[in-house]
Each structure stands twice: as structure tokens, then as C-alpha cells.
């Protein structure tokens, strides 16, 4: 009986102590976090804590009495320590050795994570602060860099790293959320500790994020990037020479125009050292875009009223849509105010009188007289349509203000086309035609379908020869058919044009339901920006910056007899590489090509040596090599292993793209270093297959 009771009591005590130990660990973690927070304002306080952290180790080596005195001396202010001391006193009174052993073990387990936590967090803080002070790009730094003729290759390389790293991430949010590496302290702690730690770390990450976005340098970069008057990141571009080349290269590689918002954004992001900071800056940019849209301010570095250029990258197209939507909203406001003021004018005119004198004075208000003699207000009339007159009333025909069609980027065009293919819908065309009919009716009271057709689709109307005597014919009251007639195809039964005409009501364009909802479109774009995959974003920025560098370099190197051939080979290489898919696998090679161009500009002598060395190695071998291998010698020097593809389709695609790149070099009339052209125009099948086998995938 006694033994059973003792066992039960001892178990209860053990459980109690274990729970107490866990609670103390949690409390200590919170305190250590607070101390770290206080450390920023008062480092001495943190330093003062270290002796206490070390003291638990000393306990194990001291006698009982000495340890008691130590506790009294070093830990009086902390509740946890005091409680621990009291527990020890109680245990001593009972004189149970087993309990004492348990306490010692508890001390050890308490001390170690506490100590590691402090050191770990201290190191993390130091690293973060050091990185922040060193690597954060600034307006001054980037402005200084524009003195270089082309953007530094290190910037392009950073974007290349981001493209490759981004392709492994699931989303932009994942990039921002991952601090990199798991905490060893967390692994050592129990389940409850890990939960507490996660909460604490999350709060810290929030702090880091807000610190980044409110960082002075970041704010200045955002302001400079979106300053419509500024000349931030503007380089001397020789626009007189080869203007065609300057504008065509970005479109050939699906990039963005030089000095556009996309290119400047690429240069800024390429100066950040971590993927996470690049992602945070992008989120800051998206926030700024939302603000500009809300305030209806144009994006700088983007045309204000152009439909998307499908040859540029999707990001640039989306920027174009945003600006175009701002233009449309501004126009609609003006048109609506104009219409409303005209209607108010008309109402006040009616109140005054219907005298001819009043009618004459109301010049801004346009009327049309019906056959019944009634005057009807013209709504949304833009300008007279040549010298056309309405068939039944003889009044002048006015072209109405019309709604504009949808603004579609390449992704939406693909979706629309697939939708039409799937459903056979002609809705878009019908909606626009109906909108035009309603606007035409509002601007031309008394009109008929034939009038609309004469305006909208002139080939579907044939005038009679008697039309030269319009006034006589009209006065004599001859039937309509004497004036002319619709085309045979337009007269067919069941013609949708007539059905739409009879459905349409006279409604001016600004009062109609919109064919294209600007708010909806831009909201879709901004949401897409927030959801954009990192590899998509950084890939487009990479290509855009690449295009800028080559565009600037071309007029400088094209006239140089030493370098022009190599430059144009490099240019052809990037065009071929960018037009294929799978940019991720080509960014390293493209960076090397860019470095070659940079070397030709900044270190021409070294570049010349490199070319001569390549020529000599070719000469020594005595065999003419394929142009691609020479490019590999120049750009590589590294033997890259062929990347294994998971699926056969990818393998086939790679082979095809490789062959395409290969054939493009042979297609060019002049090979590299024309002194020794290849013997045959194209290799034999066996040679080709062997070359493919040894072909390094750049």
C-alpha cells in the first residue's frame, strides 16, 4: 500500500515539474524576444543578460550550499528563477535525491535552448543589418551607374538568378514568406514551443516587411521611377543612327521599348541582392500602380493612348492598357459633361420660347427636324458625315460619338479566340454594331436603316443615277427606291443587321452600357500583377534589359571593324534564344553573351585578345569549326552537362530548339571570322548528329 502511494505521488510531482519547466521555457522565450527588442535601444541591457545565461552551467559544478547562495545573488528579480529556488528549498527539506536529479536535468534542458536562441537571434539581426546597409540600392547609386554606356552585366546576372530561382518557387508570396533555412532552436523545442516560435517569427517578418517598404531608399526609388518629369535612369542613346534597329530589337525578342517603365523597373530590381527583396519591391510597385489608377494618373514611360503592342512583352502591354483606360475615362467624363450641359441648355431654351430668334441663339444645341415639322434634339453628334443627308427628312447626317472596342493583351486575345472557337459566338461584333446603331439613332432623329448602312458600310448602298437631282426628286415626293437601294446581300431575309436595327433604341454612346469596362479590366491586370509568378515577372524584365543593352551598343559597335561581326553574331544569338520558349534554360548563356558585348565596349583590348586567341585555337586545330562551337569557346569556357529532361516532349523541344539555333548560324551568309569558312554549306547528317550530341545546352 505505501509503495503504491509513493509511486503515485512521485509521478504527480514529476508531471508537475515537467509542466512547470515547459511553462518557464515559453516565458523565457518571450523574455528573450523582448530583450532583443530592447537591445536596439540599449545594447548594455542585452550584454548584462549573458552572465545569467551562463550561470546554469556553473551550477552543476558547485556544492549545494554554494549554488543556493548563487541563486540568491544572481536571480532575485526574475519570478521564474525565484520559483525555481523555492522548489529546490522544498526538495532539500524532503531530502529526496531522485527529485533533485530531475531538477538538474530540467536546468540543463532549460539553459541550452535559451542560450542558443539568444546567440541565434543576435546573429540573424547582425546579418540582416549588415546586408541592409551594404546592398540596398539607392537613387544615387543607380544614377551613377547610368554613366556606364550600357547597364552592368551584374544587374542582368542578378535578374538571371531570379529567373532560375523564381521558377522553383510556387508564387511571389512564397518568395516573400520564406526567410531561408529553418531555425535550429525551433527543432529542439517541443510542439508548443514551435507554435509560439512561429507566432513570434511571423511578427518579426511583418516588421521586416514594413521596414523594407518604408525604407527611405525604397521610397526614393519608387518616387524617381514614377516621376513623369524626371530623367531617372536615362542613358545617352544614339537615336540618330539606326533608329529602325533601336525600335525593332525589343520587339524581335518580345521585350519592352528602351527607357520605358518596364526597362527602368528591370534595372532597379536587378540591383537588389536577394530574391525576397526583389519580390518586396515589386509589391511596392504594384501598390503604387493601384494608387496611380485610383487617382487617374498616367504611368510614366508608357504611351498614354495606344492599344497594346502585341510584339512587346505582356507586362508592357498591360501597362499600355492601364494608361489607355485612364485616357478613356477622362474622355468619357468630358463627353458626358458636354452632353449634360447641352441638354440643360435645351431645356432652358424650351422654357423661354419656340420663337425663331431663340432657336437661332441656341447655336451649341443641335436639332433635327422631322417630317412632321417637329424639332428633335441630336444627342451625341460628333461631326457632319460629309455631305450626306437623311433619306426621308433631308436633314444632314451626323457621325455619332461611338464607343471604342475592347483593349486586349495577348493573353486575353488567346482566351477570346478560344471562346469564339468553342461557342461560335458572334456576340462581340453584334454588341459593337448595336452600340453604333443606337448612337447613330440618337444623333440622327428620323433616320432609317438605309441611312445607317450608308454611313457604316458604304459598299452596301448603291445610289441611283437620278441622285444628282436630289432636291427635285425629294420635292416631287417620289418613293424611296428612286434614291438608291441596299445591296442584295443586305436585303436578304433574316439579315441580322435589320433585326438589330429594329431592336436598337436611340441612346448616345456615353449613356450606353460599356462595351469594355475599364475598371474591370484594370482591376484584372492589377490582380494579375499580385498573382504573377516570379519567373514570369523576372523573365520579362530580363529580356527587356537585355534588349536595352544591345540597342544602345549596336550603334557603337556596328561601325567598328574589329567587333561588328562578333556583335551581330551575338545579336542573332539572343534573338533566336528569346524567340524560343524555355527562357529559364537560356538565361546563363544570354548573360555570357551580354558580358561579351560589355567587354567589347569597356575593355576593347581584352576583347580583341579573346578574339585572337579563339582564331589561333581554330587555326592550330586546322579544322574549320562550326560557328556555334566558336561561340561556345567565347561565351563558355565551361563544360556544362546536358540537362536531363523529365518528359520526352521536353527533350524533343530542346532538340528542336537546338537544331533551330544551329541552323540559324549556318543560314547566315557570313560565318564567324570569315577567314576560314566551313567547307560545305551544311554538315552531313552524321556530322550534324555528332555535333548535337556534344552540344552544350546554354
Amino acid at each position, binding site marked *: 500500500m505505501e509503495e503504491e502511494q509513493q509511486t503515485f505521488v512521485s509521478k504527480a510531482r514529476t508531471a508537475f515539474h515537467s509542466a512547470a519547466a515547459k511553462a518557464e521555457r515559453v516565458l523565457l522565450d518571450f523574455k528573450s524576444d523582448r530583450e532583443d527588442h530592447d537591445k536596439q535601444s540599449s545594447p548594455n541591457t542585452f550584454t548584462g543578460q549573458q552572465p545569467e545565461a551562463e550561470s546554469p552551467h556553473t551550477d552543476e559544478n558547485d556544492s549545494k550550499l554554494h549554488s543556493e547562495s548563487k541563486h540568491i545573488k544572481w536571480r532575485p528579480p526574475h519570478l521564474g528563477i525565484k520559483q525555481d529556488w523555492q522548489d529546490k528549498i522544498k526538495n532539500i527539506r524532503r531530502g529526496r535525491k531522485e527529485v533533485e536529479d530531475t531538477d538538474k536535468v530540467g536546468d540543463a534542458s532549460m539553459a541550452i535552448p535559451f542560450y542558443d536562441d539568444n546567440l541565434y537571434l543576435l546573429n540573424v539581426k547582425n546579418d540582416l543589418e549588415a546586408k541592409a546597409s551594404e546592398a540596398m540600392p539607392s537613387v544615387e547609386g543607380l544614377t551613377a551607374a547610368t554613366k556606364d554606356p550600357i547597364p552592368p552585366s551584374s544587374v542582368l546576372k542578378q535578374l538571371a538568378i531570379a529567373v532560375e530561382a523564381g521558377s522553383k518557387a510556387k508564387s511571389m508570396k512564397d518568395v516573400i514568406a520564406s526567410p531561408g533555412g529553418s531555425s535550429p532552436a525551433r527543432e529542439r523545442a517541443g510542439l508548443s514551443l514551435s507554435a509560439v516560435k512561429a507566432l513570434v517569427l511571423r511578427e518579426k517578418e511583418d516588421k521586416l516587411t514594413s521596414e523594407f517598404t518604408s525604407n527611405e531608399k525604397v521610397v526614393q526609388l519608387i518616387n524617381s521611377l514614377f516621376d513623369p518629369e524626371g530623367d531617372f535612369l536615362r542613358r545617352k542613346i544614339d537615336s540618330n543612327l539606326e533608329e529602325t534597329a533601336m525600335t525593332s530589337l525589343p520587339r524581335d525578342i518580345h521585350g519592352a521599348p528602351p527607357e520605358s517603365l518596364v526597362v527602368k523597373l528591370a534595372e532597379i530590381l536587378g540591383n537588389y541582392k536577394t530574391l525576397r527583396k526583389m519580390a518586396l519591391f515589386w509589391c511596392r510597385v504594384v501598390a503604387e500602380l493601384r494608387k496611380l489608377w485610383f487617382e487617374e494618373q498616367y504611368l510614366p514611360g508608357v504611351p498614354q493612348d495606344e*492599344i497594346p503592342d*502585341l*510584339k512587346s512583352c505582356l507586362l508592357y502591354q498591360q501597362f499600355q492598357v492601364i494608361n489607355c483606360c485612364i485616357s478613356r475615362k477622362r474622355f468619357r467624363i468630358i463627353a458626358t459633361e458636354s452632353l449634360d450641359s447641352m441638354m440643360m441648355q435645351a431645356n432652358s431654351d424650351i422654357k423661354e420660347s419656340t420663337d425663331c430668334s431663340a432657336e437661332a441663339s441656341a447655336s451649341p444645341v443641335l436639332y433635327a427636324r422631322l417630317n412632321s415639322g417637329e424639332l428633335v434634339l441630336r444627342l451625341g453628334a460628333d461631326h457632319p458625315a460629309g455631305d450626306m443627308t437623311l433619306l426621308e427628312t433631308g436633314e444632314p447626317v451626323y457621325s455619332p460619338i*461611338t464607343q*471604342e*472596342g*475592347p483593349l*486586349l493583351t*495577348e493573353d486575353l*486575345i*488567346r482566351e*477570346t*479566340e478560344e471562346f*469564339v*472557337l*468553342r461557342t*461560335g459566338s*458572334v456576340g*462581340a*461584333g*453584334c454588341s*459593337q*454594331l448595336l452600340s*453604333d446603331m443606337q448612337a447613330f439613332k440618337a444623333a440622327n432623329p428620323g433616320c432609317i436603316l438605309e441611312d445607317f448602312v450608308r454611313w*457604316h*458600310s*458604304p*459598299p*452596301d448602298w448603291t445610289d441611283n443615277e437620278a441622285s444628282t437631282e436630289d432636291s427635285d426628286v425629294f420635292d416631287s415626293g417620289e418613293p424611296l427606291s428612286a434614291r438608291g437601294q441596299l*445591296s*442584295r*446581300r*443586305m436585303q*436578304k431575309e*433574316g*439579315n*441580322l*443587321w435589320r433585326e438589330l436595327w429594329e431592336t436598337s433604341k436611340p441612346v448616345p454612346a456615353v449613356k450606353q452600357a460599356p462595351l469594355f469596362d475599364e475598371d474591370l479590366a484594370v482591376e484584372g491586370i492589377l490582380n494579375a500583377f499580385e498573382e504573377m509568378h516570379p519567373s514570369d515577372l523576372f523573365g520579362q524584365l530580363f529580356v527587356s534589359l537585355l534588349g536595352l543593352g544591345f540597342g544602345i551598343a549596336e550603334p557603337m559597335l556596328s561601325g567598328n571593324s574589329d567587333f561588328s561581326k562578333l556583335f551581330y553574331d551575338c545579336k542573332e544569338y539572343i534573338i533566336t534564344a528569346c524567340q524560343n520558349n524555355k527562357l529559364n534554360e537560356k538565361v546563363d548563356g544570354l548573360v555570357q553573351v551580354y558580358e561579351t558585348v560589355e567587354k567589347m565596349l569597356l575593355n576593347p583590348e581584352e576583347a580583341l585578345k579573346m578574339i585572337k586567341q579563339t582564331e589561333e585555337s581554330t587555326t592550330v586545330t586546322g579544322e574549320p569549326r562550326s560557328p556555334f562551337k566558336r561561340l561556345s569557346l567565347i561565351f563558355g569556357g565551361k563544360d556544362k552537362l546536358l540537362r536531363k529532361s523529365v518528359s520526352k*516532349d521536353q527533350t524533343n523541344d530542346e532538340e*528542336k530548339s537546338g537544331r*533551330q539555333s544551329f*541552323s540559324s548560324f549556318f543560314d547566315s551568309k557570313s560565318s564567324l571570322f570569315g577567314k576560314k569558312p566551313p567547307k560545305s554549306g551544311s554538315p552531313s547528317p552524321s556530322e550534324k548528329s555528332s555535333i548535337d550530341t556534344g552540344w552544350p545546352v546554354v
Partner: protein
Amino acid sequence: MSSSSGQSSGYDLSFKILLIGDSAVGKSSLLVSFISNSAEDIAPTIGVDFKIKMLTVGGKRLKLTIWDTAGQERFRTLTSSYYRGAQGIILVYDVTRRDTFTNLSLVWSKEVELYSTNQNCVKMLVGNKVDRDSERVVSKEEGLALAEELGCLFFECSAKTRENVERCFEELALKIMEVPSLLEEGSTAVKRNILKQQQQPQASEFGGCCS
């Protein structure tokens, strides 16, 4: 059976063809004549329409998706979307109306240059309505000269009598197949379609006409 790419889809290559030109030159009639041997009057196209034709040419089975566009100026923004990715573009004029011929260089060749995203696409100039020889105002020599200037193939035909209609489309398809990048696009489109079908085995293939 399903592993074979050609067998499962029923065709080897898939190409997108675009018909453009002034209103009422006969674009829709040309397309309907090619698809179904019909020669009746067709109501003016509203926006865009399309028809799909299976064709065997040069030993290959082709699926042609042919987009028909409205020629009126008011529809131009709407139709400009459909230039994207077209491997073949047919510019049509009416031999009995000189302005439709003049507008090929004033308007339509500029539209192609502006909106086409395929630098290597094959272009063809087609003079329609040659059955109205008594009303002809544009000679064949003028058509040939403009085609050479614009870098286009050239045919004269009649949608009404079906003269040269099939030959137009067949010749265009053959020329597209001679361009390596377009050939690759054509086979890539087939693979993509097969992949979609495998993901949705229940869905039936939409290969019919729509008018």
C-alpha cells in the same frame, strides 16, 4: 492508338488562316465557296466568324481554322485581335472596284505589319469576282505587280464560279508548310490539342462549321 499523335487527333498539322480586305469584296463568299461549294449571297459579316476545313495536301492532313473578318472600318479594332499567331493571311480585293485594290496598300498591308505577330507568315493576294469580266477595272498585271511589291502569292478567282478557290487555299497551305517555324507551330498546335483532349476525355472535338 492514343500514343500516336497523328492518329488520335485525325490530322497532322493545324494552321490559322485570316481573311482580310474591304467590305463586300467577297471574303465570306470565298470562304463559304471553299468550305461547302455554296455560291449564294451572304449577309455582311458582323465582327468575325470562322470555319474549319480538313484538307490533305502535300501528303499531310491539315486542319485549317479560317477566320473571316468584317471589312468595315468601325470593326477594325475588333478584328485586329485575330491577326495574332496567324500562319497565313489572305488579302482580298474586288477586280470590279478599284478602291478595294488601292486600299490593299493604303490600309490592309499596314494592318498586317502592325498587328501580325508572326514575321514569317505567308501572305496571299486574291482578286475576286473575275466572273464579271465586263466590269473588270483592275488588270491581272496590276495584281501581280502589287503582290510582288508586298511579298505575297497571287491568285485571281471567283467565289461564284469557284474558279481557283480551292487552289488558293491549297497553295497557301503548301507555302506555309515550307516555312520551318510555321511548320513547327502547326505541329505544336496539334500536340497542345491532344493534351487538352487527354485531360478531358469526355469532351467531343469541336470540328464542325458554324454559320
